[in-house]
């Protein structure tokens, strides 16, 4: 006898109908497969708590065997990739500010001779400590590297002087921009980029798709409104939304976490505008592809995820494999993140910001062009 309150058959009817809905929604279906794949690949490869191969600039005024060994030793540790050899420290400071290198190693001119004399020469290592997770392990390994590398060369000399108990070389580490290694200093400015990226993309894509789903777009298309007018009118309100969120983030970063703000507020606001525009254009492009608001939401998420994982927000950018870094470089979030951290923590000015501004601007222009090209004034 059939149970009066629960019929398996009726449940099956609902279940079957639900599966049919799923099958009809191609976008959702594809994302069901693509999302875990993407998560797995990105998380699996990109997360590296012990980032190696950090770009390092070296100013070596000394050409002795000892300084060569020291550099070789750093290299062999795999933490440091010597990407630049410089003549002056000033040049190194600039590279550090621009975020092109994570370390600046300065070997003094009389390094070899001082060592031979049995004195302890000072090697200066300036580290970009904005992201403590990225540089922490490398810094920790420095003293040992120096001792081992230089110690080996000193074998003959050392025999005379007996075991070197203090280390033969003093490594003086300067953790710049975030000397206390406070993680929030790094993550909180990044969160501003995350918030803007998600809400701007999501809100625009939904706002436009809603018009299609509700049928109001048909009415609007029959009026004299032109594509550019529609796009501008539709998107500009979300610029205001974006700025409001940016200000909230900055205010709370200051009040709750005491994150410093070294650079120019105006410059940051200018760059924020470009980033907001990029996110809005992406959202608008999604809305031309999505049929329903649900699909638009899923697409925005799909775009947001690599931004979170590959931009250097969650994990040190340098710790990721090359292909992940390459994908990361295509994302606007990566460049905006560097700009925000640079301005807030390093006090970067326009000159230091520009190298990260160009890729961001290029992305924005391309995204706007795609959005415009995709938008149809007809229902064709």
């Amino acid at each position, binding site marked *: 006898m059939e149970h009066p309150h629960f019929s398996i058959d009726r449940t099956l009817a609902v279940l079957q109908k639900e599966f049919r809905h799923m099958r009809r929604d191609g976008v959702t279906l594809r994302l069901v497969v693509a999302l875990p794949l993407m998560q797995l690949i990105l998380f699996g490869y990109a997360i590296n708590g012990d980032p190696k191969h950090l770009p390092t600039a070296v100013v070596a005024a000394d050409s002795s065997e000892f300084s060569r060994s020291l550099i070789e030793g750093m290299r062999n540790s795999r933490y440091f990739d010597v990407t630049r050899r410089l003549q002056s420290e000033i040049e190194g400071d600039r590279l550090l500010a621009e975020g092109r290198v994570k370390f600046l190693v300065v070997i003094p001119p009389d390094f070899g001779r001082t060592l031979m004399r049995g004195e302890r020469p000072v090697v200066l290592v300036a580290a970009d400590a904005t992201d403590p997770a990225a540089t922490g392990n490398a810094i920790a390994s420095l003293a040992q590297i120096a001792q081992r590398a230089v110690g080996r060369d000193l074998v003959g000399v050392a025999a005379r002087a007996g075991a070197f108990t203090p280390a033969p070389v003093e490594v003086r580490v300067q953790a710049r921009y975030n000397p206390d290694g406070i993680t929030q200093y790094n993550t909180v400015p990044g969160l501003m980029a995350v918030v803007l990226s998600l809400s701007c993309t999501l809100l625009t894509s939904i706002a436009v798709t809603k018009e299609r789903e*509700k*049928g*109001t777009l*048909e009415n*609007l298309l*029959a*009026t*004299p409104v032109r594509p550019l007018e529609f796009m501008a009118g539709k998107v500009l309100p979300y610029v205001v939304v974006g700025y409001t969120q940016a200000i909230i983030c900055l205010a709370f970063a200051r009040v709750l976490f005491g994150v410093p703000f070294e650079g120019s507020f105006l410059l940051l606001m200018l760059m924020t505008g470009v980033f907001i525009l990029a996110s809005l254009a992406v959202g608008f492009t999604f809305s031309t592809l999505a049929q329903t608001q649900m699909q638009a939401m899923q697409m925005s998420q799909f775009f947001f995820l690599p931004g979170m994982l590959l931009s250097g927000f969650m994990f040190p950018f340098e710790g990721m494999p090359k292909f992940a870094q390459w994908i990361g470089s295509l994302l606007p979030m990566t460049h905006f993140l560097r700009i925000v951290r640079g301005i807030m923590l390093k006090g970067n000015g326009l000159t230091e910001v520009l190298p990260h501004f160009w890729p961001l601007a290029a992305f924005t222009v391309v995204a706007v062009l795609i959005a415009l090209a995709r938008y149809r004034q*007809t*229902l064709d």
Partner: protein
Amino acid sequence: MNGNVAAPAIDVRGLTKSFDGRRVVDDFSMRVDRGRIYGFLGPNGSGKTTTIRMLCGLLTPDAGEGTCLGLDLRTQAQAIKRQVGYMTQRFSLYEDLSIEENLDFIAHVYQVPERAQRVDQTLDSLGLTGRRKQPAGSLSGGWKQRLALAACLIHDPQLLLLDEPTAGVDPKARRDFWDHIHELAAGGMTVLVSTHYMDEAERCHALAYIAYGKLVTRGTAAEIISEAGLTVFSIRGEDLTAAAADLRGMPGVELVIPFGTALHAGGTDRAAVERAMGPLHEKYGITWTAVPTNLEHVFIRLMDRTPDNFSA
């Protein structure tokens, strides 16, 4: 910008549109003079909406040419949009905006001069001044339809394209709606209206019947009826269901429709229809009288005769 005032309101030739390889509108031509109410009839999926969308620039025809209000369909779509009012089949104003905000938005988009007054006037003529702040989504079907019509009229268009404007609206509201349409036409406006209601078709100055994207017949209601050359009988009796089953498929019987307590049967060959009914007098005890042919008879016969596009 105003086009040629002497030109017909609509004059298109050979309009064709396909979706995914399926021809939805096939070599369609029509001419509508100014100040006329032109009815657009045909079964669902016959291409009425697609044709209307091509006329107002929402869809680009694959082939064909012509003018709307003397403006070229292909090159002057933007100018056409400014002078056409298009009422979509589905309510397409913003349900979360108030009645007033919706009207104001539409007026703004069309850059109507003295917008505030125009909106006030419209609200007043609709009798919605007291409810202006109410969200449009909270209106009943009949009121939504009135609001949608008012919104398409706010920029004083010369041509109105109405896509099944009275679907789901009660008879009183439909009658009021049609009275309004006639007033507008009397004032010089041209109206193209698609409908499934025969009483509405009869209120049009001229009609076009399309099926499966092709024009089947056109003319005034009287012309279409007389051209069809049908003779229709109203049959009464005991077992009309059985009689109808027998009549269907008999030679010369082109039309069998239950009509309340009677059965209507007819064809172009009066003698053949009478021959078919003859034996049924004995069998089911039925009697018949000739009745005047109406549009419904004609269209039902047309629908049965046109080949089905979906099975072709």
